[in-house]
């Protein structure tokens, strides 16, 4: 499998995850009542950061997995 196809697979998988997480984050943000309050925005920021970090972590692990698979074949 050529390197470019590996990266393509990662990009598409991560895009799908990104879209799904966006929907999840939005639905969470609807729980908050007053959007102009700092505390509500901070809660959104914290949730976004946690989910975002999880998303980036999955990106990292996926890349490492693909890379080690390629290296074990060559």
């Amino acid at each position: 499998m050529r390197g470019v196809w590996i990266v393509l697979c990662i990009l598409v998988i991560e895009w799908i995850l990104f879209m799904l997480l966006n929907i999840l984050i939005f639905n969470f943000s609807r729980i908050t009542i007053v959007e102009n309050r700092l505390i509500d925005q901070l809660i959104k920021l914290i949730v976004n950061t946690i989910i975002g970090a999880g998303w980036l972590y999955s990106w990292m692990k996926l890349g490492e997995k693909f890379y080690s698979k390629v290296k074990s074949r060559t």
Partner: protein
Amino acid sequence: MIPCYIIFSSLIAICLSLILTIFFRSLFLRANIVGIDQFKINKPKIPTCVGISYGVTSSLAIVILYLLGCINAAIMYSYSLMMMLCIIVGLIDDFYDPPGVFKPIAMLFAGIPLIIFRCYTPYLKTILYGGYSLPILYPFMILLAFSVTSNTVNMLDVINGSAVIGVFMVLLSGLLASIITKSSLGVIISIILLSSLIGILLFNIYPAKIFLGNVGSLSMGASIAFLAVTSRIELPLVVAMFPFIHNSFYFLAKVRGFIEHKKLNVNITFLDDRGFIVDAEDKRAPLTLLRLLVSSSPRKENELLNDMLLLFIISLILSVITSYLITIRV
């Protein structure tokens, strides 16, 4: 009348971009401001920092747009000031070689003109549901966006044309996203930025006759952030920048800090005797985009540029789908 003005401004931007790129190339060549092309067997010396022409061209083109009445004064002032800051930060980094943490911190300030002139709407559009209002946090997110986009573009400037091709495709995604989301300001700005990039693109693509320098890559990255914020197409542009994010995230995750590529004491890739780029297979090295692309077999620099172009085309398609999903309400 406005479409005619935009075409006129973009033609001027293309001409200016070519003229200024040729001018700075010869100027820096004479002044011996050169860098070594590491992925060529004969290691030629190439004039560097020529990316300054992008900042100058795009700023002048934005001023012309303002004089023709296509954009307002706030946009013109904020773009010009932002670009001036990027050029200063880039030149300091190119000539004085400050610590790695300098660029991410200094580039935070590039977003300040946008906040001062209030060229933003504190509402983050998302897919299917509309979006959410962030009146207090949005200005801070702007600062972060400028630092992230400029530095991530800077980090992918690894082979001839890689950063420019990427920025060109991201700006093209910005144009399409602006059309889909009906942002007329986005259409105008992205056309002007694309036109301003032509000269650099022609000279930086493989085999490169110029190098961008930090001044060029930081300016380009910041202009993407400017387009995203003013045109309210943040999400589609994040998707279009996926290959950039991939590259810098792996680097930062492995290195665990802001360290320059050249100061990293590990080999990520190297050039073999036949002129192929090879994975160094060093376990301490970050899994950058370039390393993943050569992981299965060594490849030539021009082949790798084609691979990167393919990745950016796919990201563009995903960005267009994202833009379309933004316009849908459930």
